[in-house]
C-alpha cells in the first residue's frame, strides 16, 4: 500500500516537473479560431490539429455561407470535416460588426454586410438580425452549437459609460433570450498583428502561465497562424500544458443544435425581437 502510494506520488512529481510556469504548475488550454472558414488556411489548420491530436472550437462567420451549399459547397465541406474530426463549431455572427454601436431604429445607419461599415452605427434590428442570422440559415444551423463569440467582444466587454453598457446589456439579453451562450477568451494571441509577430509564441506561453490557462483566441484566416500553429501546439505541450476541447465535441451530429426559436417561421424572430426590446426599456435605454 505504502509502496504504491510513493509510486503514484513520484509519477505525479515527474508529471509536474515538465511545468515551466513560475508557480511550478501546468494548465489546461482551449484553442479557439475566429472568422473562418478560410478556403485554404482552415483545411491546413485542420491538418495540424489532426496530426497533433488536438480538438479546437471554430467560431465561423455566417456570411461565408450565404450563397448556399449548391452554389458554394467549399465552406460546408470544411464544416463537415470539422464535425467529423470532432471539433466544435460556434457562431461569430453573420458579419464582423461592432454590435454595441447602436443608434435609434429610425436613424440612418451603416450596412452590416459592407466591411468598410463594420464599425457601425447600426439599428437594434440590424444588430439583432446579425446575431441570429447564422442560426436562421437552414443549411448552416445544423452545424452550429448554440455558442456565440461576439466580434471585438463588443457587447460582452463591459463599459464604464452607462449608455454603452445599456447597449451591451441589451446584446447579452439577445443572446440569453435566444438561448445562446457566449464564449469569451482570456488569452489573445493577436495573430493578426504583424508588429507583434516576432513575440507571439513567447507572449502566448507567458499568458498561459499568468492567466493560469484558459481560452486561446486565434484566427483561422491568418496565414501566420496556419504557418506557426504546429510549432505553437508542440511548444504548449512541451511546457507541460494540456490542450483540451471546449467540450467533448458533437457526438450526436444528427441532432440539430440551433435554438428552437430560429427554426420556426420568420414571425418567431419578430416576437423575439419585441421581447428583447421590452428588456431594453426596463434598463432605461
Amino acid at each position, binding site marked *: 500500500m505504502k509502496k504504491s502510494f510513493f509510486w503514484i506520488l513520484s509519477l505525479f512529481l515527474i508529471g509536474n516537473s515538465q511545468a515551466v510556469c513560475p508557480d511550478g504548475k501546468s494548465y489546461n488550454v482551449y484553442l479557439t479560431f475566429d472568422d473562418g472558414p*478560410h478556403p485554404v488556411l482552415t483545411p491546413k489548420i485542420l491538418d495540424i490539429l489532426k496530426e497533433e491530436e488536438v480538438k479546437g472550437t471554430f467560431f465561423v462567420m455566417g456570411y461565408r455561407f450565404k450563397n448556399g451549399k449548391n452554389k458554394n459547397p467549399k465552406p460546408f465541406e470544411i464544416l463537415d470535416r470539422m464535425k467529423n474530426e470532432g471539433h466544435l463549431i460556434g457562431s461569430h455572427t453573420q458579419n464582423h460588426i461592432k454590435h454595441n454601436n447602436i443608434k435609434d431604429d429610425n436613424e440612418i445607419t451603416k450596412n452590416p454586410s459592407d466591411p468598410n461599415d463594420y464599425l457601425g452605427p447600426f439599428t437594434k434590428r440590424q444588430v439583432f438580425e446579425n446575431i441570429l442570422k447564422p442560426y436562421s440559415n437552414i443549411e448552416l444551423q445544423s452545424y452550429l452549437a448554440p455558442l456565440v463569440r461576439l466580434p471585438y467582444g463588443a457587447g460582452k466587454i463591459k463599459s464604464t459609460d452607462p449608455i454603452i453598457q445599456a447597449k451591451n446589456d441589451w446584446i447579452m439579453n439577445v443572446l440569453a433570450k435566444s438561448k445562446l451562450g457566449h464564449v469569451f477568451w482570456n488569452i489573445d494571441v493577436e495573430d*493578426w498583428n504583424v508588429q507583434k509577430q*516576432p513575440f507571439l509564441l513567447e507572449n502566448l506561453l507567458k499568458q498561459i502561465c499568468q492567466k493560469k490557462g484558459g481560452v486561446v483566441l486565434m484566427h483561422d484566416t491568418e496565414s501566420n497562424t496556419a504557418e506557426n500553429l504546429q510549432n505553437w501546439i508542440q511548444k504548449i505541450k512541451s511546457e507541460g500544458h494540456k490542450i483540451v476541447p471546449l467540450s467533448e465535441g458533437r457526438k450526436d451530429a444528427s441532432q440539430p443544435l440551433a435554438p428552437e426559436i430560429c427554426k420556426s417561421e420568420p414571425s418567431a424572430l419578430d416576437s423575439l425581437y419585441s421581447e428583447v426590446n421590452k428588456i431594453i426599456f426596463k434598463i432605461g435605454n
Partner: protein
Amino acid sequence: MKSLKYLAISSIFILSTGYAQSPVYTTLNSDGKNIFTGVKIEKKDYEPETYIQKISADTLSQTKIPLPKELSHRDIIAIFTAEKNLLVVMTQKTIERGDNPQFYTLNHEINEWKKIGDSNCISFAKVKVEKNSITIHCIETNDKGERTETPRKLVFESVVFTQVGEITLPSTSITKDSIKAELLGDPFEWRRLKVNAEKKEKFFHP
C-alpha cells in the same frame, strides 16, 4: 440536456473576461520640447483605458492628456509630430481582431482634438511619413492564403509633419535634439520610460 451542456461550457468562461494589469506604454515620440507617450490600462472585464502622457524636457514634469471619449478605449499606436503644436495620434482597437486605424490631430497647447481620417488597414508595421501624408504598408491574407502588402496613402491637407521618413512601429525610442527617451520592459509590456534631457536623467511609470 444538450442545451444544458452548452450553457455549462459558456458559463465556465463567463468570469474569464480580461485580466487586470498595471499600465503599459504603447509608443512614444518627441517634438524637441516634450516627450509624448501612449499609455494603456487594462481592467478586468472592461475595455482598456488609454491616454497620453506628456513630459516636459525642461522640467521633466509629467502631465496626463485625456483622449476624447470616442478614443479613450482605443490603443495609441503611434504619435507623429507636426507644425503648429500639432500631434497626429493614430489609434486602433486591438481586441479580438484589430479595427481600422483612426487619425486625430491634437493641439497639445490648447488640448483641441480633431478627426482627420481613417485607413482601411488592420495589420501593418511600416509607415512612411511625408510632408502632408502617411502611407501605411498594409499586410493582408488573401483568399489563396497568401500574405500581401499594399501601400495605402492618406493625405492630410491641414497637417505639415515635422519628422518625415519610414518608421517601423511600434516606436520605442527617440532621439531629438538633446532629448533621448526609451521605453523599457518586455516587448509590448513597457512599464518604464527612461528620459535623458538637459543633462538630467529620470525614469517614469505610466
